[in-house]
């Protein structure tokens, strides 16, 4: 048997299998099919020895594609950026956004701990003025981490509080401001408008989208919805979009890591951290190899 040119008909059944596999791993359905389609196209016409290794060929091509998608084009180096802002004599501002209950406040306190243990003095800014207990929750974290907290209670306009917070941090010489926002569904227009206002007004250095690894197709909708609202409702000509992703509850999903793939594929932004538990030290960088292996493991 000589070299055989791969044809669509040969690939289709294998591709279909892999697509189903990706979906069981929590990859959003249409993203799974788009990725498989592109793998298929890239393999068309290439030569292939014998029949037995076809599966391996497709698999390795998919593996390469997944690795490429998950490896971001640029990294968010929070410490370097914060140090640069400090040299300019202004606080480095990070804004946490996301839907309800994904772990914004908890992630914020983890990042605060991370920054603190690297020699910065972060200040927490309580801009969730809606949900019951939100300010108290942040105060508990601030006390535990021995960090300053800026809050003005409930019911107030969040963007104003954020502005005052940043100004206050500058006066007091705090290096980093971590803005906590209220959870909101991506298609809730009034709330998304308010968020866009907060982001436009304060122009934070980093807009961190917090998403949970538990969601499937929803992940794509969420991040698209946030990006769309941030650009649509923004008054400025060059609207701020999401700069990075923090993926939480990574410890709850065993090998169904598809949300990571969906989010990175949709936004093209890096996963800055993953959250792997409920304590301050449960924060990691994303291990791309491990992620790809989990996705391909059946």
């Amino acid at each position, binding site marked *: 048997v000589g070299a055989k040119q791969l044809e669509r008909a040969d690939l289709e059944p294998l591709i279909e299998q892999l697509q189903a596999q990706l979906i069981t791993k929590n990859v959003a359905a249409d993203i799974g099919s788009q990725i498989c389609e592109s793998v298929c196209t890239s393999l068309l016409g290439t030569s292939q020895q014998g029949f037995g290794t076809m599966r391996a060929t497709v698999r390795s091509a998919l593996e390469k594609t997944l690795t490429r998608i998950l490896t971001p084009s640029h990294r968010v180096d929070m410490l370097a950026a914060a140090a640069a802002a400090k040299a300019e004599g202004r606080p480095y501002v990070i804004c946490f956004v996301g839907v309800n*209950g994904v772990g914004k406040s908890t992630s914020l306190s983890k990042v605060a701990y991370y920054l603190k243990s690297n020699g910065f003095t972060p200040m927490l800014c309580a801009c969730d003025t809606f949900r*019951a207990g939100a300010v108290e929750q942040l105060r508990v974290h601030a006390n535990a981490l021995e960090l300053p907290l800026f809050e003005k209670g409930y019911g107030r306009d969040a963007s104003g509080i954020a502005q005052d917070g940043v100004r206050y941090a500058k006066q007091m010489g705090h290096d980093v401001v971590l803005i906590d926002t209220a959870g909101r*569904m991506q298609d809730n227009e009034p709330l998304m408008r308010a968020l866009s206002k907060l982001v436009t007004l304060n122009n934070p250095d980093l807009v961190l989208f917090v998403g949970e690894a538990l969601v*499937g*197709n929803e992940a794509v909708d969420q991040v698209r919805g946030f990006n769309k609202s941030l650009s649509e409702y923004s008054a400025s000509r060059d609207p701020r979009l999401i700069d990075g992703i923090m993926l939480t509850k990574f*410890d709850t999903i065993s090998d169904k890591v598809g949300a990571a793939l969906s989010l990175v594929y949709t936004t093209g932004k890096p996963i800055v951290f993953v959250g792997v538990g409920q304590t301050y030290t449960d924060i990691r960088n994303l291990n791309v190899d491990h992620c790809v292996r989990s996705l391909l493991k059946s």
Partner: protein
Amino acid sequence: MVLADLGSKVADALRKMTRATVVDQTVMNEMLAEICKALLQADVNVAQVKALRESIKKNVDVEALASGLNKRKMLEQAVCNELCAMLDPGKEPYVPKKKQPNVIMFVGLQGCGKTTTCTKYAHLYKRKGFKCALVCADTFRAGAFDQLKQNATKAKIPFYGSYTETDPAQIAAEGVAKFKEEGYEVIIVDTSGRHMQEEALFEEMEQVAQLTSPDDIVFASAFKKKVAVGSCIITKLDGHAKGGGALSAVAATGAPITHIGTGEHIEDFEDFEVKSFVSRMLGKGNIK
């Protein structure tokens, strides 16, 4: 309507089928393919989607149907039935009874909305004329008691909790005993969020369950093995949320879904009834 996206896609597929001149195997397969795609996009488990497809194919043999029967209507009905079956575990949920204490314990993953839902649940039963009370047994998460306290105050529902006590089982037992004595009918115990990979937290949850001996434990999939979950509440079904997956996954555990949460406010909470839910989802009005 929640799940509007899924509903409109399925309804579309059905409409396309009814418009076909001749209903045969190809038309049916096309329709099924479209419905399955819609379900997958709503995060329904692959295996369940497959099962639905097989079962419809098995139940409706288009070619062999007698001439008098309306094939279109039959297919439509079959799809409706399968969707209902997917969401229906075939078990009656626990219903709180009047004039006796009903202890209800809420469990679930972190951030799934337990605390908010506790208040909504209490509010709903309060409007139905029950004497309701809330117990906060979440001693782990920062600000948990404050959250419940503020919620309960807003809804004017008595609550019990502690800033200093760290043993959740202790608080739960005390709170439940106190409210029982005072003649409350629906006593709701809120616990901290946890997931399967956290053994220690599960032991703690079992302790709370033992000490309070709840009549009903509300929510969720993996928990079924550890404690006898009685019913489920699906939260965050509002807007675009692709709750299809949650709905079907929960139904697969065998615990009936009793309510759904559709927003952040205390009134955003409805009773869940499979048949009317499915028919509303497909845009056919609320028929029973």
